[in-house]
């Protein structure tokens, strides 16, 4: 996307704030220019009055100074308010739109871009664009208004003197333009050197125990010294260029000297030129600023637009459709709790199937377990069931409805999902249990929490159900978070339960509580579980062994153990033994 289109689209993002914002930005630019112009007019009258000793004229010109000053202050008050408020409203629109885009992004698109990248665009880039509305565009408008205004004005006052001013001012371009590219390159190099150094500092801080115990202090300092030296080199190069750039601010005095010299020459020929000279001196300020600052301001704008482009790209990514499209040939038998036939999935960017040829049915109310090595396709299968990934081929049905018949939101209503690592929001406990469902009342929520063995610990939290959980539930233990997730699933009361069993062991007390809660949750529900515990697997009505994205074996525990070369049997014999209990937290 080129910068101009990005700028136009970002300006259209101001939405209902567009008029207010434009009024503010144009108003401020014009106020600045008008102040200069009025000062120039009154200065010229002022000088003429002094040269001719004309007191009434002096009175008028002084009054004009005061009026110009007051008008400018008022103009700034109103235009400034319109600008700042308009900028806030515009930033709000951009933030809302970017968030909404991410929120409806398909999971595959989000995973491909990377969560870190998405987050950085949502937080850092939106802040840069906010700053663009507040400051950068205002600088652009001011410089352009004052610049073009002043150029026209000086030419109108005296075209030859005007050309002198413009010619001398534009000399600063000789310094700023050649430095643009090196400045950009050096600032990138500097950022990279900084990031590399900081990354290693973070490693040194977090790995201090390893550095001590493996005697790595010298190794680490050598490494960081190299980074530090690279950073120094980048810094020195940037400083030198910036020092050269800084001369521009003093070079503007040259314009004044040139103008004065030219004015002296003209005044010697014609004394009536003096008042015009004074007006020109006043207006030359706008011209020199225009030439000396233009490159910097455009560079700033480039940086803002780069951030804006990243946000616009985010907004342009494919959203999740309301419906998945596809066709299915054979209607699944209505008795089926859940049916999957000929299911396959391929990442959009690759040719390799992640899962393929998956077909099975789950009787209503029964439990099936999926086992197999990690990366075998269990998690992908769950994502397909939930409609988070769109199947490349095949069908999924719940009772007699296919995934293609229902809107995705309706389809997902068929499932209660308990992920491996329970996810809680920085909301109240109550809000976390509701998880977006309509509130069935405190009593019902409490009953659910009791069933999930969560009520007791919730009541011990400072504000009970109204306790606001910290970011990623830091104030809860892993087992407590899981019980909240289970409560949510119970309350959802969906026909099918998808359970991704946790691999890492909890402490004993939590472990028991969580198991009990899960058993209650599973009761009477069609359940699909990614299982890690032998006890869970043994209880399943059917076990599926997944490897390389295919169902390799299926049967009950006894049946599978009977097959002498079976993968499942090998897995169990190799040591998928009953999970040992941990000693932690046992008081005896």
């Amino acid at each position, binding site marked *: 996307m080129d910068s101009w289109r990005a700028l136009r689209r970002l300006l259209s993002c101001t939405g209902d704030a567009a008029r207010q914002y434009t009024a503010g930005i144009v108003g401020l630019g014009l106020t600045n220019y008008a102040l200069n112009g009025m000062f120039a007019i009154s200065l010229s009258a*002022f000088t003429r009055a*002094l*040269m001719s000793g004309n*007191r009434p004229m*002096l009175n008028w010109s002084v009054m004009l*100074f005061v009026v110009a*000053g007051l008008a400018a202050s008022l103009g*700034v*008050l109103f235009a*400034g308010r319109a600008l*700042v*408020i308009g900028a*806030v409203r515009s930033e*709000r629109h951009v933030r*809302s739109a970017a968030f909404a885009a991410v*929120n409806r992004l398909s999971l595959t698109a989000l995973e491909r871009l990377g969560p870190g990248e998405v*987050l950085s665009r*949502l937080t850092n880039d939106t802040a840069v664009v906010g700053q663009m509305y507040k400051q950068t565009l205002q600088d652009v408008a001011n410089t352009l208004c004052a610049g073009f205004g002043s150029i026209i004005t000086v030419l109108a006052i005296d075209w030859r003197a005007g050309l002198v001013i413009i010619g001398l001012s534009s000399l600063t371009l000789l310094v700023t333009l050649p430095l643009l590219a090196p400045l950009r390159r050096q600032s990138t190099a500097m950022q990279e050197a*900084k990031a590399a150094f900081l990354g290693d500092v*973070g*490693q040194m801080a*977090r*790995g*201090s*125990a390893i550095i*001590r115990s*493996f*005697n*790595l202090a010298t190794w680490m*300092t050598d490494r*960081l*010294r190299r980074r530090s030296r690279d950073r*120094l080199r980048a*810094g020195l190069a940037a*400083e030198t260029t910036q*020092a050269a750039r*800084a001369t521009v601010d*003093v070079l503007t*005095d040259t314009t004044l000297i040139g103008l004065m010299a030219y004015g*002296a*020459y003209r005044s*010697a020929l014609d004394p009536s030129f003096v008042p015009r000279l004074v007006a020109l001196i006043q207006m030359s300020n706008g011209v020199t600023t225009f030439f000396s600052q233009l490159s910097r301001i455009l560079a700033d704008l480039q940086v803002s637009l780069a951030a804006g482009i990243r946000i616009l790209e985010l907004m342009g990514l494919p959203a*999740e459709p309301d419906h998945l499209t596809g066709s299915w040939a054979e209607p699944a038998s209505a008795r089926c709790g859940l049916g999957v036939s000929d299911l396959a999935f391929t990442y959009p960017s690759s040719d390799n199937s992640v899962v393929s040829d998956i077909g099975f049915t789950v009787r209503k109310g029964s439990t099936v377990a999926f086992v197999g090595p990690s990366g075998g396709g269990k998690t992908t299968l769950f994502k397909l069931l*939930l409609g*988070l990934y769109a199947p490349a081929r095949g069908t999924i049905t719940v009772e007699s409805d296919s995934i293609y018949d229902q809107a995705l939101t309706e389809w*997902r209503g068929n499932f209660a*999902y308990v992920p491996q690592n329970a*996810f809680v*929001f*920085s909301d109240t406990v109550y809000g976390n249990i509701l998880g*977006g469902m309509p509130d069935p009342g405190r009593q019902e929520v409490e009953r659910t929490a009791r069933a999930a063995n969560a009520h007791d610990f919730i009541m011990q939290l400072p504000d009970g159900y109204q306790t606001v959980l910290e970011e990623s539930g830091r104030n809860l233990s892993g087992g407590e978070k899981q019980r909240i997730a289970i409560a949510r699933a119970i309350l959802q009361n969906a026909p099918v339960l998808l359970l991704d069993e946790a691999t890492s062991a909890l402490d004993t007390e939590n472990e028991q509580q969580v198991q009990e809660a899960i058993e209650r949750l599973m009761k009477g529900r069609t359940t699909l579980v990614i299982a890690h515990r032998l006890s869970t697997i*043994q209880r399943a009505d059917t076990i599926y062994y997944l490897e390389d994205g295919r169902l390799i074996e299926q049967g009950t525990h006894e049946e599978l153990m009977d097959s002498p070369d079976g993968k499942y049997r090998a897995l169990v014999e190799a040591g*998928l*033994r*009953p*999970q*040992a209990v941990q*000693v*932690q937290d*046992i008081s005896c």
Partner: protein
Amino acid sequence: MKRLFQEAGALTWLFVGAVACAVVVSVSTVAFADIFGRALSLVVAGSGLVALRQVIVVGVAISVASVACTFLGKLLAGHFSERLQRILRDRAIERLAHATAAAMHGEHSGDIQSRFSSDMLFLEQLVRTDSLQFVSQALTALLAAAYMLSRNWLLTVASIAPTPILLLVASFLTRPLGPLMTAAQEALAQASVVTQEAVSGAEVIRAMNMTTTVSLRHEHALSSWQERSTTAANQVAKLYSTGMTLAVMPFIIVLSVGGYLALAHRIEIGLLFSFVLLVNYLSFPLQEMPRLLGRIRSGSAAAHRVLELLDVPVERTGGARGPASADDVLTLEDVSFSYSGTAEPALKDISLTVKQGQKVALVGTSGSGKSTVLRLITGDYTPNAGTVRVNGLSVQDWDLSALRATIAVVDQEAFLFGDSVADNVRTGRLDATQVQIAEALDVAAADFVGEMTQHEDTLVGDTGGRLSGGQRQRIALARALVKDAPLIILDEATSALDNELERRVYARLVEHYPDKTVVAVAHRLTTVQDADMIYVFDNGRVVEQGTHASLLAAGGRYALLWELQQAQESDRG
């Protein structure tokens, strides 16, 4: 500031040079106004050609001096700042790399990073810009005031008299702005928490049809941010306006008061315009100085935080190299220890002995003191009473790096550097060969490495973030194995592995390194049931010791724990 120049040493001359340049620029600013005014007076008087010569000769000279000194001053200040920062960085790195465990324990890595980034940035701003700006603004203001007072005191006083009043108005307007901005920032922070969750919880949010709920929460936070920002914006507009008045007021006064004075021939027109040029340098510092001083104060505070890194306590150096091996590899004699700042001792009168080649386990509830014992062995902490001996020599007498060369530690966290798998294993022994690395990975059952896209050269991500906990632990184990130290310490080293893998890893460890002495801490009892000796910790004491069989037979606490887990297992099955 003083300490900064001490650290800078000879570099300080660069800064002195920059100050000298700033002085030249200040003088030329005032001289420029003077020559400009004189020239204008001559022009008005009709002697334009005299003025022409003056302007060209003197003006160009002043301009050249000013441009040259601006360039040189910025260059010197920039180089001073960069080189000073390098010195500070390198000294801080040196300290941190040798910091004591106690010093690093309380430190958050984010805090250390922020001292190197944002605090360093403030420091840069201080030495490179703010301190020099202070010098040049103050000096220019003084020179301008002196010049103006000497030429016309009445006009000088009149022109700056109202500025203090307007400054009061501005500070009155600024005061409520701080809390308003903070409130707006808080609302924005709330929105960014929701944003974070929307991304990290994307799967769950979609699966549970929560997109609308999440959107509403985000909109709610944004609305409150917008509302607060708008209130602040009204205030900001008033400030803009006051700023504008502050900027034009001195000009208007100089021109009006000066105009009547000139009409009465009490001041030359040219001088009047010199005043117009100079009055800015008088009123601007008045506006800017409070802000500048504020920046200098926060810069000094930041510099202080950077300099604190140079005072981080470092580990002792020197000591004896103990024997490479001994019959009693490890002995603790009546060892007591408490962490500073805690009343309750972490260890009370611990005595134990580990013989060469023994596999010993420490078990007990968390906080019972097992890990603390390990920290005393590696010399991270020193006991308050009693002696810890490694190979017969007290840890306090060992040279710390020699001591640690005889011990290989694997901890639960399994920290990895953001390099490749092979590079990480190599940190165990920097001169390890490819073959040795491959062997260590093999014993640590890190078969998964073979399936990674670039095998051993695959990057593990920041702190090993691209790997699972179990994968990290196996690489950390390989790192310890390649070190080939006689004593191996395993602190919950396989906690993220499933039972099958854990058994495999331990079996291979014993098979390949039968002679190594191993001290292991574990929660899971099955992990350590084959140990030669098990010490059961409780509340900082050893309450039982023996083999798995003898402890079971004794029917004490260990037996109780074992029973409990068996019972729970059969319940569940």
